[in-house]
């Protein structure tokens, strides 16, 4: 029925499994490592979708920066103080049931939608290059790009203003 790609299955198992570990493990540091592995799995999905540019940025930003930030925070904060509530079996069961319901719902929606049509994936148009995306960004979508750039610049300036220390005494 389905032509299953073993690579896709492997990456999916890796991503979902490490996400579950990230949520469930008692050791926060292992959770953070599992989160980093899950993000690498998402980069693997982007690679499978022929989007290596996005995949590399996914690794550089999410593994190289966000995961480091999370691990850094976890190391500095005493982990015992964060979690004092005991594990509740009822809550856990309810959470698993809720997750299964949501996943079944999404699956049902996908199955009845046009994605299930076998001819859906058979389009022959070439993949879009990142240079083409860059050209589009600088021509058709340039106002949005300018607005985004201004927002980012404004937030950077605001962050610098907030981080400026005023309590340093000038040497006389």
């Amino acid at each position, binding site marked *: 029925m389905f032509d299953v790609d073993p690579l896709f299955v492997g990456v999916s198992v890796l991503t979902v499994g490490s996400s579950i570990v990230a949520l469930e493990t008692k050791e926060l540091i292992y959770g953070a*490592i599992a989160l*980093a592995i899950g993000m690498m799995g998402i980069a693997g999905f982007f690679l499978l979708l022929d989007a290596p*540019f996005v995949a590399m940025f996914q690794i*550089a930003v999410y*593994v*190289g920066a966000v995961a480091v930030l999370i691990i850094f925070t976890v*190391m500095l904060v005493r982990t015992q103080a964060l979690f004092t509530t005991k594990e509740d079996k009822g809550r856990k069961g309810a959470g698993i049931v809720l997750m299964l319901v949501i996943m079944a719902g999404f699956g049902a929606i996908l199955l009845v939608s046009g994605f299930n049509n076998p001819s859906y994936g058979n389009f022959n148009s070439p993949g879009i290059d990142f240079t083409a995306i860059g050209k589009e960004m600088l021509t058709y979508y340039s106002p949005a790009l300018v607005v985004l750039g201004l927002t980012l610049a404004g937030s950077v300036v605001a962050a610098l203003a907030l981080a400026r220390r005023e309590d340093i005494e000038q040497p006389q």
Partner: protein
Amino acid sequence: MSTYPEKFRFGEFVGSIVWLVFIILILVTLIGLPLIFVVLFYAPLPPVGDQVLTPYLFLSMTVDPTRTLPIIKYFIHTDLFRIAAFPGFSYAALFAAVTIFVERKFLAKMQLRVGPLYAGKIEGIFQLLADGLKLVSKEIIVPSGADKPIFWAAPIAFVATAAAVTTLIPVAPGWVAANINVGLLAVFAILGFFPLIALLFSWASNSKYPFIGGLRALHQMIAFEIPFILSALSVVILAGSLNLTEIVNSQISSNWYILFLPISAFVFYISSLAELERIPFDLPEAESEIVAGWLTETSGMIYGLIQLGSYIKTYALAALFVVLFLGGWAGPVIFPAELTPGYTGVRIYNAITASAIFWFTIKTFGMIMLMLLPRGINPRIRIDILLHTGWYKLIVLAFINMFVALALVYGGILGPGGLLVR
């Protein structure tokens, strides 16, 4: 002083060696050869040239040098060879080994010392072997309370990450293990793993000096990653591609980019020194302040693996500098087209590829020497100066040359159809 056994007889020594050879010959005849035949019979062998490789053909090829050539040619064009041997791990590890020895002799000569002298007769050339044997035979001590899985996994991850960078570096036309369109981005994405590994390893050591060193490594690598990427970005503007092979080709068709982007090259060089934790920026391993930084609790082969990884990383960053600024393998063809005139049959080697590899190796080695140089002459800088340099000065410098690159492209001097493009 080493001691000799009381009853040493030369005849007994020779006799034991003869016995060993005899036993090895018997084992090879009874076990080795049948095993080879069984494997050759069942393993699917590739067609070489116009004939299918049978065990008989394989054995006759291994004894006849002219018939061995096609099979060697087949194997050096497989992906496994590229990853494990030539542009990949073994080449980089060879570079690392040479670098470790040359560094010690070079620094010693700079500081009027002699350096390694006694292992091996000539200038201590077996020092590396002696050090390697020492590291292998040493006990690996895991500190009490250490996080064992991370403690064991981090050094291996360090070497693996460094080796992953080397697979992206093109050494000669077509000689790259992974020729991907976003090669430069992939290099930076992989380099982003290093602070993570250093931080995790320092935390897993369960000791305060490694942790201080790990935090310093994190600060330093994050602070210098941005000027690092920005300085490479101006090269991308000039070359119009993120593929490293394309970048080299565009330099061959114009000029080396260090001529147009000297400030970027300088920023790249400084940032790679910081990324490598080499001497002016070796705060994470500052041995006079925090014992040995994040390497304090390492011993034996764990230390050896991390050192191997960091020297492979040195090779990778020097090679990246050569690819981005020094024209990669660009250089005149210096090898003759045929090694043995009058030899009929297959060509033994490609003169263009051989000279490309030669130029690349020479340039990379010179670049590594330039990276070793500050260790002999510079003191360690303070951490606030380091962060200030990274965040304020180098980023601004990188931006300056990016505008130069943009002016060159929009002024029609470089880039597609430019004045200087041949």
